[in-house]
């Protein structure tokens, strides 16, 4: 029997007995980043395909959520920093080998662009609210008037309307980078065997897009959009399940530390939370419900949508938490 012990009593805060320096902020941000990336992807994709008038909700209305989500996500990231007043150091260099640097700069481009995008549809957004959410409109109609009164916003809106096509193309590319980065951020750490797999990038990208499709399902009133996104979501769920199986196949065929990492989910402490909450409740049940709905059964679309969102959030919490436990030594 081999036993390794630190006998000098190392008790570094947030490091020992195992690392837990990333708490709720990082998984919440990874969830929000993936969700926002998906919303941006769908809206710019359908805009580029010329479906602006056919799918107005997806192209014009739902992207309003993106700036709100991203600002909240950025705030969560800021809360995570331990040396907060120096956060601006992120924007003094570009470090190509550092995923964190990529993420910071991607957000720096995506966030303002998403604001410009939503501003350019300001009129349509408030018309939509007036029609569907009269109370919300009553409470917020002054915002529209205020924005339109300020000259700087008027010129941004004018620019946004004129340059929608290039903006849509940039957002399409950036959304994929943003979505895949939420996984690469973790997979770049080879010291944490659970994270150190290239599947994590595509897995988080697909999962993020799936949560975005679920959000669209949750809010859209248009039956044809509902049908289309149920189908898209089903496809994304299928890819996600395939990637999860692939993830564990890869681990089990890899080195000792990665086999041990997989064991956390195959009999270890994360088995129930992962397979029951993420895979079963977060993927399989919503997939079954969506299939039934497409077959004509009356199922409130909110149920599968909310399950997918919860599953996506739990997936990120579990991966961040479990990854910090996995290590090379001791």
């Amino acid at each position, binding site marked *: 029997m*081999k036993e*390794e012990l630190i006998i000098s009593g190392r008790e570094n805060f947030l490091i020992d007995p195992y690392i837990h320096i990333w708490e709720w902020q990082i998984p919440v941000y990874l969830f929000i980043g993936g969700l926002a990336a998906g919303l941006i992807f769908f809206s710019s994709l359908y805009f580029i395909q010329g479906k602006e008038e056919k799918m107005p909700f997806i192209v014009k209305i739902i992207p309003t959520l993106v700036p709100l989500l991203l600002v909240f996500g950025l705030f969560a990231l800021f809360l995570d920093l331990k040396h907060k007043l120096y956060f601006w150091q992120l924007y003094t260099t570009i470090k190509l080998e550092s995923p*964190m640097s990529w993420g910071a700069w991607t957000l720096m481009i995506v966030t303002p662009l998403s604001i410009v995008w939503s501003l350019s549809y300001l009129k349509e957004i408030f018309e939509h609210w007036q029609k569907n959410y009269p109370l919300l409109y009553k409470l917020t109609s002054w915002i529209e008037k205020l924005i339109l009164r300020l000259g700087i916003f008027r010129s941004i809106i004018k620019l946004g309307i004129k340059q929608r096509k290039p903006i849509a193309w940039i957002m399409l590319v950036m959304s994929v980078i943003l979505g895949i980065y939420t996984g690469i951020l973790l997979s770049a750490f080879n010291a944490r065997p659970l994270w150190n797999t290239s599947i994590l990038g595509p897995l988080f990208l697909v999962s993020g897009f799936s949560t975005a499709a679920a959000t669209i399902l949750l809010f859209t009133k248009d039956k044809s959009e509902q049908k289309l996104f149920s189908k898209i979501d089903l496809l994304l769920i299928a890819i996600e399940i395939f990637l999860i199986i692939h993830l564990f196949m890869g681990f089990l065929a890899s080195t000792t530390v990665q086999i041990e990492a997989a064991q956390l989910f195959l009999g270890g402490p994360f088995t129930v939370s992962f397979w029951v909450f993420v895979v079963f409740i977060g993927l399989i049940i919503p997939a079954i419900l969506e299939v039934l709905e497409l077959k004509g059964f009356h199922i409130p679309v909110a149920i599968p949508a909310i399950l997918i969102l919860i599953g996506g959030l739990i997936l990120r919490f579990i991966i961040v938490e479990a990854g910090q436990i996995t290590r090379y030594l001791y």
Partner: protein
Amino acid sequence: MRYAMAIDTKKCVGCSDCVVACQTENNVPIGYCRDWVVEVVDGTYPQLEIEIRSERCNHCDNSPCVRCCPTGASHYSDGGIVLVTEHKCIGCAACIQSCPYDARFSHPDGYVDKCTFCNHRIQKGEQPACVEVCPTKCMYFGDLEDPNSDVSVILKKRKYKVLAPEAGTKPHIYFLI
């Protein structure tokens, strides 16, 4: 110039003097440490084998912490020493997650802290505090590129290993076995 350290696991008795010397020399906040002692016990009584290692940052050639740092706060200094510039560090903990040796921690003031090979001492031609105080003289420090340095001489004479070589970091703390 390439600084490295060799630690004789056959001579180390695990007294933790190196840990205390480091905490004193570097004003390490109470409750934290930049170096630590690991005891490995192998076998069952009476067939027992023991190995004691004084561990710290490995000042790797291929440091994942330097690669992952988004601001360049973690960097290579003269002689391959890996250092953190406090006023550039944002405390994002990417380097902490990237270190297979878990050698870094978040200083109560916010920035990330770790072993510096006592850079301030070696610049004056002195040995790192841990090496200086070791009562069994089981630690050797010096320039790997100088064939006559303590560390080069001992590494030529003895068999050694490094920790987690499979992590690909090319560490520079050698354990004599």
